[in-house]
C-alpha cells in the first residue's frame, strides 16, 4: 500500500512537471521564471493554471468514482450517475441561452440545486438508501437532459454552438484565485473521505454487513453522496462534463491494487490527476494549434489501456 502511494506520487510529479513544458510553442523554463516574454506569460498564464485545473479535476472525478461505485455497489457508477453534473449542465445551458457571461456560477447553482433536491428526496424518514439515491439521481439526469434538449432546440445558431462546446467539456486556463479555492475544497474533501477508508471497505460489501460491524451506514452514505457531489459539481462548473476519468481510473486501480479503499482513494486522487493532465497535454499538442476535446482523449487513450489491463488481470504494483 505504501509503495503504491509513493509510486503514484512520483508519477503525478513527473507528469505535472513535464506537462506545462509541452505545447505548440517551445518555451524554456529558465526564461519563464526570469520573467522573459512570451515564455513567462505562456508558462504562468496559459499552461500552468490549466495543468493545475486538470490535476484537481482528474483527482476529484476519480475519487468520486471510487466513492459512488462503492456506495451504490455498482461497477458502472461514475461521478455523473447521481445527477449533480446534469444540474450543472442545465445551469450552464440556461446561462448561455439567456446570454449571461457567468456560466460557471450558473452551473454551480444548478449543481447545488440538484444536490439539495436529491438529498431532500432520499433522506426522508432518515433512511438514506443507496437504492433511492440511484433512482433519484438517474431520474434527475433524465429530466435535466430533457431540459437541455428543449433549450437547445430554442437556441440560436451561435448559442447552439456554445451549448455543444460546453457539453463536450474541456479545460481552459482559469484564475489562480479560482484554482486556490478549488484546491482547498478538492484536497480537503478527498482527505476527509480517505480518513474513512476502512469504513468504505465494509460499505462496499453491504449495508447490513457494515452496520453489524459498527459502521453508521446512513451517515457514511450521506457523507459519500455530499462529498462526491461537491467535488463533481465544482469541477463540472469549471470544465463541463469530462467523461471516462471517473469510471475507468477506479477500475484500473482496482485491477492493479485490489479493492482496499486505503490504497484506492489516495491512488485515485494522485493517478486520476496525472491521467487527466496527460490527456489534456495530448489534447492541446497532438494536432496543435487545433485542440481535441479532452473527453475524446480520455476515452481514446484510457479505453485501450483499460482493455489491456482487463485482459492481463494481474494484480501487482508494476505494470
Amino acid at each position: 500500500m505504501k509503495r503504491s502511494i509513493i509510486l503514484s506520487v512520483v508519477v503525478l510529479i513527473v507528469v505535472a512537471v513535464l506537462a506545462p513544458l509541452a505545447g505548440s510553442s517551445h518555451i524554456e523554463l529558465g526564461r519563464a521564471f526570469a520573467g522573459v516574454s512570451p515564455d513567462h506569460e505562456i508558462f504562468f498564464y496559459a499552461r500552468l493554471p490549466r495543468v493545475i485545473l486538470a490535476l484537481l479535476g482528474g483527482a476529484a472525478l476519480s475519487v468520486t468514482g471510487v466513492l459512488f461505485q462503492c456506495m451504490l455497489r455498482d461497477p458502472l457508477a461514475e461521478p455523473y450517475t447521481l445527477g449533480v453534473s446534469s444540474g450543472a449542465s442545465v445551469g450552464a445551458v440556461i446561462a448561455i441561452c439567456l446570454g449571461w457571461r457567468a456560466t460557471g456560477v450558473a452551473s454551480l447553482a444548478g449543481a447545488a440545486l440538484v444536490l439539495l433536491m436529491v438529498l431532500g428526496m432520499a433522506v426522508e424518514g432518515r433512511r438514506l438508501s443507496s437504492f433511492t439515491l440511484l433512482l433519484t439521481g438517474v431520474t434527475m439526469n433524465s429530466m435535466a437532459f430533457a431540459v437541455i434538449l428543449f433549450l437547445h432546440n430554442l437556441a440560436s445558431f451561435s448559442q447552439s454552438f456554445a451549448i455543444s462546446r460546453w457539453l463536450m467539456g474541456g479545460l481552459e486556463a482559469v484564475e489562480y484565485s479560482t484554482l486556490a479555492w478549488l484546491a482547498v475544497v478538492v484536497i480537503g474533501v478527498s482527505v476527509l473521505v480517505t480518513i474513512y477508508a476502512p469504513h468504505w471497505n465494509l460499505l462496499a460489501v453491504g449495508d447490513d454487513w457494515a452496520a453489524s460491524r459498527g459502521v453508521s451506514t446512513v451517515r457514511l452514505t450521506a457523507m459519500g453522496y455530499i462529498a462526491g457531489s461537491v467535488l463533481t459539481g465544482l469541477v463540472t462548473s469549471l470544465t463541463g462534463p469530462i467523461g471516462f476519468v471517473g469510471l475507468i481510473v477506479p477500475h484500473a486501480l482496482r485491477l492493479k491494487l485490489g479493492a482496499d479503499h486505503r490504497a484506492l482513494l489516495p491512488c485515485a486522487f494522485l493517478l486520476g490527476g496525472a491521467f487527466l493532465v496527460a490527456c489534456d497535454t495530448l489534447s492541446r499538442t497532438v494536432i496543435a494549434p487545433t485542440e481535441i476535446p479532452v473527453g475524446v482523449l480520455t476515452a481514446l487513450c484510457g479505453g485501450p489501456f483499460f482493455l489491456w489491463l482487463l485482459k492481463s488481470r494481474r494484480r501487482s504494483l508494476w505494470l
Partner: protein
Amino acid sequence: MTSFVANQLGFAYGLHEATFEFPRNGLITIAGPNGAGKSTLLGILAGLRSPYLGSCTYAGKEVRQWSKREFARKVAFLPQSIRLEFPFTAEEVVLMGRTPYARGWFQTDEDRSAAVDAMTITDTLGFRARDFRSLSGGERQRVILASALTQRPEALLLDEPATHLDLRHQLALYRLLGELAKSLLVVAVTHDLNLALQFSHRVMVLEDGRIAGDGAPRKVLNPELIAHVFGVQATMHGSWMSYEA
C-alpha cells in the same frame, strides 16, 4: 445468566409478542416456514431492524440503545451470503470483522493475529490471498464465519448458514458451531429440521410471527407440531426424521 431477553417483542410486519430468554452459551436454532418471521427476529437481535415493539435487551441493555461499535464487539451477525462487486481477498473480508476494535487507519498486530486464529478455526487460511469472488459457496461461508469470529463476539447470529453448502460441509459447519457454542451463544436460522434435531440444544419454531414451540429439540420437534406448523407428516427414526406431504 442470560444474554438476550425479549419481552412482548414485535415488529411492524412478521413478528408478534415474542417472549423468551437466551442463555450465554449453547446452540439455538430457529425454524419455521417461509415468512414466519425467522429473519426478522434474527435482524432485531442483530440490531439491524428497528424500531421494534416491546423490549429486547442484550446483557440487560435495550438493543436499540447500544452503540453500534460496542454492540459489534458483543454480537456478530452473519448474513446468508454476501455478493461482492469488487476484488476483496478472503483475508480482507475476514479483517473487516476487526472494525469495531479499530483505533486508526492501519491494522494492528492484534487484528492480524485474530484473523489468523479465526481462519485457522474455519480452515480458510489456505486461500487467504484469493479473490473472495473466486471461492466456492462453502469456502465463502467459512470466510464469512471467520470474519464474524474476529469480532471476538459473545453471541453469534447466523441466517441460514448451511443453505449454500453440500451435505458434508453442512455437517462440518454445524459441528463447528456446536464446538463454538460451548463458550458462546450461537443462534442459527435453519430450514433443516434434522440439523436442528441433531446439533442444537434448543429449538424455537415460529409460525406466522408467533412462537409455536420453544425448548429441547426432541420435545419441540414432534410430529404433531410439525404437521401443524409445516403441514407435512413427519416420522421419527431415532435421532432423525423423515417427512412426506
